């Protein structure tokens, strides 16, 4: 059936009914591109977050008082490092610094620059960074979102932090992180651990929480029991819980869009069914002529279904391509705000370009099968019309 005269006739029909197909094509492309955008955003975020989780500690120990997280003594780290199976236990100092005039906050992180692994990674991250110079004074390295925010307020060299004890500390902006790491560093302010304690109002010898590295997964459960037995006011968070929390979050947001997509798709299929069920006089004549010149019902159905398939395939290919450009090259304006939020510093993340072939295949099936099915029944109804009757 797929010989050149059939193809010529198929495209001739498409050209003849171009207005009718154009409307379907535009709506179908919009539906596919909207859902693909959500899928790309959600997938790329999950993939990028997975990378950051690889470097995370296996356990986080928080001190809880009355259901609230409070500062933990830093020397708990030494206490926990004695547990068999724990490779390292380290205190962590971090928190949010609220900038009252704008209602904005930064995430202040204190790093131990005597830790060779941290200083080495920091040197790799900021080209030409001299750790000794950085440690010599009150210095900080800021994310590009914070840099833009401070530059707008004319803080180009330093920023004065107001401390919870009614004091203030001027901290020099030593360097800014490159924007390619914005996904994790947009609101970051990295400084020496004791300086971070002063900015966040932590007493000397205190930490926000304690992290533990347990290389052997099999020892995880027994290590957790031993941690809990050490103190009675602990909350232990496992790395896999954090991974699940983020997975749930993005699957949830993606799932809401999937539900909307299903509703829109069903509506669209119903509209298609209605549209193709309306048999006009010209449709009847067209089919009558085809049947009179020897076309079988099967041939007519093949022609009509092929007509719809070309429109659906074109809409699918264009929709996915447009969505890819929208998410990874235009950074998903408006839609990105749903996933990244818009309550603090403006975000303009560039996500790592990735495509999940399983999801694309699923979308292809979910789109093409209902589309074709919606057309099949009305087309069959037209095709079985008696040619003599049709040409009357």
């Amino acid at each position, binding site marked *: 059936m797929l010989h050149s005269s059939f*193809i010529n006739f198929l495209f001739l029909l*498409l050209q003849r009914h171009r207005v009718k197909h154009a409307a379907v094509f535009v709506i179908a492309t919009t539906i596919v591109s909207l859902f693909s955008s959500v899928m790309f955003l959600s997938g790329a975020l999950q993939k990028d977050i997975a*990378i950051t989780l690889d*470097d995370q500690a296996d356990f986080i120990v928080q001190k809880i008082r009355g*259901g609230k997280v409070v500062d933990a003594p830093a020397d708990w780290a030494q206490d926990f490092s004695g547990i068999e199976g724990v490779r390292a236990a380290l205190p962590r100092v971090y928190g949010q610094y609220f900038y009252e005039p704008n209602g904005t906050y930064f995430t202040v992180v204190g790093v131990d620059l005597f830790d060779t692994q*941290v200083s080495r990674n920091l040197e790799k991250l900021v080209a030409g960074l001299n750790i000794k110079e950085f440690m010599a004074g009150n210095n900080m390295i800021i994310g590009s979102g914070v840099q833009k925010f401070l530059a707008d307020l004319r803080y180009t060299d330093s920023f004065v932090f107001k401390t919870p004890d009614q004091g203030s500390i001027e901290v020099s902006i030593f360097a800014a992180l490159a924007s390619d*790491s914005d996904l994790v560093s947009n609101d970051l302010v990295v400084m020496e651990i004791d300086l971070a304690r002063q900015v966040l109002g932590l007493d000397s010898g205190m930490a926000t929480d304690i992290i533990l590295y347990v290389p052997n997964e099999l020892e995880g459960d027994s290590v957790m029991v031993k941690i809990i037995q050490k103190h009675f006011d602990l909350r232990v968070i496992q790395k896999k819980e954090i991974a699940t929390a983020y997975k749930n979050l993005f699957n949830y947001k993606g799932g809401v869009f999937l539900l909307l997509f299903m509703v829109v798709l069903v509506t669209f299929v119903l509209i298609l069914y209605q549209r193709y069920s309306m048999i006009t006089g010209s449709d009847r004549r067209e089919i009558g002529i085809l049947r009179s010149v020897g076309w079988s019902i099967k041939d007519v159905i093949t022609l009509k279904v092929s007509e719809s398939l070309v429109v659906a395939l074109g809409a699918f290919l264009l929709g996915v391509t447009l969505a890819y450009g929208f998410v990874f090259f235009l950074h998903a304006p408006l839609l990105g705000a749903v996933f990244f939020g818009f309550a603090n510093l403006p975000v303009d993340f560039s996500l790592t370009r990735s*495509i999940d072939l399983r999801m694309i295949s699923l979308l292809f099936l979910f789109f093409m099968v209902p589309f074709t099915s919606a057309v099949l029944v009305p087309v069959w109804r037209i095709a079985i019309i008696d040619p003599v009757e049709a040409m009357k």
Partner: protein
Amino acid sequence: MTRLSRVYLAILVTLVAAFTAVVVDGTTTVQTSSLSLVAAVTRLPGPSLSVSYFEPRIRHYQDYSSTFFPGMQPLNTMDFVYAP
């Protein structure tokens, strides 16, 4: 083959080529190493979401001391069912 068919075929081939380019680009792009470097320095997980001050920056560290969550809730929290 008529001129019209050639035009339509050219459009279809262009779309297939663009889609193939998207698939190839999406499956071969390597993730930037700076993400893992930042995570290794800060030892903090999670993206730098632009969430409200009262929402946890790192979602799983929330301690329920704040009940102001304008964002969508995971299905396994009662906030999702009853709304805060």
